[in-house]
């Protein structure tokens, strides 16, 4: 038969859904703005790979300008100025963008994958498994992540990847709670029961029926997780407990604060903070705009049905 027709038609459905969602998304000024800011930061992060190649002076960590031994303001040579040992602040800012992206995206990815998996299992299995998993989630939920990181940082020296991992571990419960409640409501939907009546296994029901329905939500939560991960890592670095071998925006603020330049060097104080806020803001705006795509209730009337 003409079985070959099956595939492309199938794909079309997802393409169609994507284009439809995109059309709603791009109409949202907030989503557009978020995307543009995000693209700028991405360019900065990419640039951070190339700038150090210009010369040893432009290494964000060790590249002290030999001519400068104190913090200087913006100049032609150093666009944003230098810190107190003569390192270029703009280079550090670029490096910070890279770190923020790595921290934000990997934390969000780990915590959302973990949270989605646990949430689906918990919601679908129910009973004692559900109770146990949710109790564990409760414990993580009440613990302030920064405080935990501080305690751990006082006992061990944490590298950036360990920090990422710990933040991710602290952040899955809220995701899994939402995915769980979504799964619970899906579980009692007739189409899941119809599939059970047809003889489908639990495995099939979770992957074929529940997962496609919760994935958009999980994806949405990923953008929100990025925001909180970046903020926590920056706060940790700011307090001096970040990865000492890694320049980041939080670290830059830590230096300006601990070296006592905070009231003297606005060119040093302002950019990292603005960057952190803007980057988290852009992810947040992205999420909000996506929320509108996903939640038909918030769509303008008449476009829904």
């Amino acid at each position: 038969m003409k079985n070959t027709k099956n595939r492309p038609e199938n794909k079309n459905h997802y393409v169609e859904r994507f284009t439809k969602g995109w059309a709603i998304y791009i109409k949202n000024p907030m989503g557009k703005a978020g995307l543009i800011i995000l693209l700028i930061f991405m360019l900065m992060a990419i640039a951070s790979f190339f700038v150090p190649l210009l010369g040893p002076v432009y290494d964000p960590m060790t590249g002290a300008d030999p001519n400068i031994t104190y913090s200087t303001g913006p100049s032609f040579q150093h666009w944003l100025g230098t810190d107190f040992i003569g390192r270029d602040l703009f280079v550090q800012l670029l490096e910070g963008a890279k770190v923020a992206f790595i921290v934000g995206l990997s934390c969000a990815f780990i915590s959302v994958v973990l949270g989605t998996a646990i949430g689906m299992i918990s919601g679908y299995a129910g009973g004692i498994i559900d109770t146990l998993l949710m109790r564990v989630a409760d414990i993580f939920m009440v613990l302030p992540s920064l405080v935990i990181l501080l305690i751990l940082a006082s006992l061990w020296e944490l590298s950036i990847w360990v920090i990422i991992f710990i933040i991710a571990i602290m952040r899955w419960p809220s995701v899994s709670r939402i995915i769980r409640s979504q799964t619970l409501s899906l579980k009692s939907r007739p189409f899941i029961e119809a599939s059970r009546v047809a003889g489908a296994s639990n495995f099939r029901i979770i992957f074929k029926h529940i997962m496609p329905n919760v994935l958009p939500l999980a994806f949405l939560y990923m953008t929100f997780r990025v925001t909180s991960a970046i903020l926590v890592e920056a706060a940790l670095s700011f307090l001096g407990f970040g990865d000492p071998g890694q320049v980041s925006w939080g670290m830059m603020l830590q230096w300006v604060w601990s070296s006592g330049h905070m009231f003297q060097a606005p060119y040093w104080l302002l950019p990292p903070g603005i960057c952190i806020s803007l980057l988290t803001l852009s992810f947040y705006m992205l999420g909000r705009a996506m929320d509108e795509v996903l939640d038909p209730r918030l769509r303008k009337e008449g476009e829904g049905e």
Partner: protein
Amino acid sequence: MALLRVENLSVGYKSKHGLIHAVNNISFSIEKGRSLGFVGESGCGKTTLGMTLMGLLPENASILQGDIFFNDDNLAGFNDEKWRTFRGKEISMIFQAAMNALNPVIRVDEQIAEVIAIHNPQMPRTQVFDQVKKIFDLVEIPEDRLRDFPHQYSGGMKQRAIIAMALACAPKLIIADEPTTALDVIVQDQILKEIKKIQTALNTSLIFISHDIAVVADVCRDICVMYGGQIVEKGNREEVFQSPRHPYTRSLLESFLTLDSNGDIKVPEIRESPDLITITGGCSFAASCKKKCEKCENRNPGWVNLSSTHQALCFEEVIHKD
């Protein structure tokens, strides 16, 4: 003079695909103390009509043309402020109980008291609650349930509370939109009796909207059958239900199951729902009509008088073709 007179009313919704003509050029009137039923299938515009009469259209909907005369006022030209003093006092509405029409965090008596209080600002609080008690008596809710929250009520009691709310200010016209759809048959029967009893006792006018022909026939003396945003047949209930003339009314009645129907049920053909966006010159039912002729598709049908009260929106030839 008629209490309510609707003339050439059209209501449209803005949508991505264009303007949806949910209500299309409707005219009818209702006298004081009469009951008028609107019956039709989902999407025929009956709910939109009810919401228009209450001034509760959603933001993307608007009255395109026509007038709604209530006594001497034209409701079509009302602003928000005027509607506010009008709604609940002159016209009120009975909603579907299952649709969670009662606020879950406010006690039932308070929800009814506030209607009275808002329209009678100088009435003292104690008198307001006396009034609430009287209305509860009327709809037969026991007095000790007054201070309950809505979730403590059964479906039937919720519906009674909603009726009580509609009656609170003794309005001249009550609009009931599918008031019994979510209820069980036995409870539905009680509520329908309640509505009939109150309507005759207070001599108010009633507009009753439902998809269930038998329910409408039970409650209302005059009937309007709606299809595709238009009234296609109107008359008193004996005329409409015992000698229907419009092909749509006929197919509706022929396929309606009752306890008395024997093997005489006719299964209608599968038909497409009418297109409410592109209004072509022609009868909206033409595509599904068994008796259609050539002009049905390109000319607008007109009102055919069958008796002094009975009319159908069709062509003479079609109606008399058997």
